[in-house]
Every structure is written in structure tokens, then in C-alpha cells.
């Protein structure tokens, strides 16, 4: 409980950690570009759909939109919110349970029971 132990990192450790942080920073920037890209594609697709340029069907566009959204959310959770790091077991457990429940509730609510 009380105070945490103050621990002074050795220069080597310190450097190592810095480098690691940098690396994960780089990964995050890449992921961010990916997110921007997905967003752009989503918006363009919809604009194109509306202008009837591509001739995609609605039933093609909507699943793609949802898929992109899901990917973006995964990136946010895993990279920006660090769910990929250690010590996030319970976070994963509850987030996944929550998402699973939300998904099945929405499914039940919209697909099988709604008229």
C-alpha cells in the first residue's frame, strides 16, 4: 500500500525504455494514418455512391462501412488505448464481454424481434 519504491533506472535501461516508447509512438502514428485513410475511403465511398459514380449496391457499401468502423475501433483500443499492453487482462475481459453482449442485444433487438 504505502509508498511505492523509488527505483532509479540505469542509463542503459533508461535508453532502452526511451527507444521502446519511440517505437510504439511510431506504430501509433502509422495506425493513425491508417485510420485517416479508412475514414477517407468511407466518406468517398458514400459520396461516390450518392453521385452514382461507382454503381455499388447499398448492400455492398454498408457492410464495408461497418467493417471499416470496426477496424478503426480495434486500432483505437489496441494502439491508442494500449489494450495490447500487459496488465490489461480484465480490461479486455470486460470490453469483450461488453461488446459481445451489446452485439447480441442489438442483433436480438433489431433482427429477430423487431417488426
Amino acid at each position, binding site marked *: *500500500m*504505502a*509508498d*511505492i519504491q*523509488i*527505483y*532509479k*533506472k540505469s542509463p542503459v535501461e*533508461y535508453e532502452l*525504455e*526511451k527507444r521502446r*516508447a519511440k517505437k510504439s*509512438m511510431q506504430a*501509433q*502514428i502509422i495506425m*493513425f494514418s491508417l*485510420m*485517416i485513410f479508412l*475514414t477517407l475511403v*468511407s*466518406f468517398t465511398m*458514400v*459520396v461516390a*455512391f*450518392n453521385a452514382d459514380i461507382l454503381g455499388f449496391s*447499398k448492400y455492398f*457499401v*454498408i457492410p464495408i*462501412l*461497418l467493417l*471499416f*468502423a470496426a477496424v*478503426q*475501433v480495434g486500432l*483505437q*483500443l489496441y494502439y*491508442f*488505448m494500449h489494450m495490447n499492453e500487459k*496488465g*490489461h487482462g*480484465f*480490461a479486455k475481459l*470486460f*470490453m469483450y*464481454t*461488453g*461488446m459481445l*453482449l*451489446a*452485439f447480441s*442485444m*442489438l442483433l436480438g*433487438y*433489431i433482427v429477430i424481434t*423487431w417488426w
Partner: protein
Amino acid sequence: MDLNKKFTPETWPANPERATLEAKNKFVGFWLFIAGEVILFSTLFGVYIALKDKGISGPEFSAQELYELPLVFVMTMLLLTSSLTSVFAMYHMKNYNFKKMQIWLSVTAFLGLGFLMLEVYEFAHYAQLGFTYNNSAFSSAFFTLVGTHGFHVAIGLVWITLLIFRNAKRGLNLYNATKYYTFSLYWHFIDVVWVFIFTVVYLMGVVG
């Protein structure tokens, strides 16, 4: 825990946001809170999907006619970027660079503020057209879903402003590191919700 304990980048722990038991509790508790929010927002999404385009609003107020994608696109970019800036801020927090962290958080706050203003503008615009909260079931559901998100953004802004000013003088310690960190989690979560809002509400609304 001693609040005035000063750290150096060398002594600053690797995971400052959960270095003490209190911090760990907050950290876990906040994740659980977010898991609860997942259900909260999915309920709102369910309601919105069920009530989309329902009511007597007339054809000019259908999702397809109403929404304006350019505005939404700008809002999306603002919010996504603010997510990145808060990642920068956390990067500096881990490196015990208080000043840079504060700066990036201020940028985050400004981007968030921009988003919120645009949202207020959007709502006011719709209201002017006659699409108000009381207009139809669709309008109630729309404003409630998007408004709840906007409300979360507003709370986040107040929160981070308080944090920035409150700690400006005292600098980073293990007590407020958790607060900064949970804020960043919260902010990312807001972004997650927005991703679904622009997809399900706006893009899918325009697709029809």
C-alpha cells in the same frame, strides 16, 4: 503517498498511471466504466436504428436529405486528430516531460472545442430548419444519440481544462498521472463512439 515527491525522468516509473494501488484502482475502475459505456451507447444506437426516419417530419427531414457530409467530415478529422494529440501527450507523460504533455493536451482540448462548436452549429442549423428535438421520434432519437456523445465531449473538455490549470504549477506526480491517463482513455473512447456515429448515423443515413 507523498504528493510533493519529485521525480526525474530516470526515476519516473514505466507505468506511472498505475504505479500505486490507488492508481491501479482508478485505472481498472475506469476501464470498467468504459465497458459500461459501451452498453449505454449501443442501447442508444439500437433506439436510433429503430426510430430512424420515423415520424411525421416530412421528406425534407429524412436522414438522407438532412445530413451534411462535409461538415461531418471536418468534425471527424478534428476529433480523430485530437485523439492523436492526446497520444502524443501520453507519450510525453511517460517520458516525464510535463511541459510538452500540457501543450499537447491543450491542443487536444482546442481540437475538441472545435468539434463541439461545429456540433452546436449543426444542431442549431437543424433546429432552424425546423428539425427540433420535439419534431418527431426520429428527431428525438437523433439528438439524443448525437447529443449524448456531444455531452461526453463537453465533460471531457471541462475535465481536461481543470486538470491542465490545476496542475500547471505542481507538475507531474503519481497522483495526477492517473488522472491524465484516464482522461486520455476517455477521450479515445469518445472517438470510438464517434467512429460509429459517423458511420451508422451519417454515412449509412446518407446511403439510405
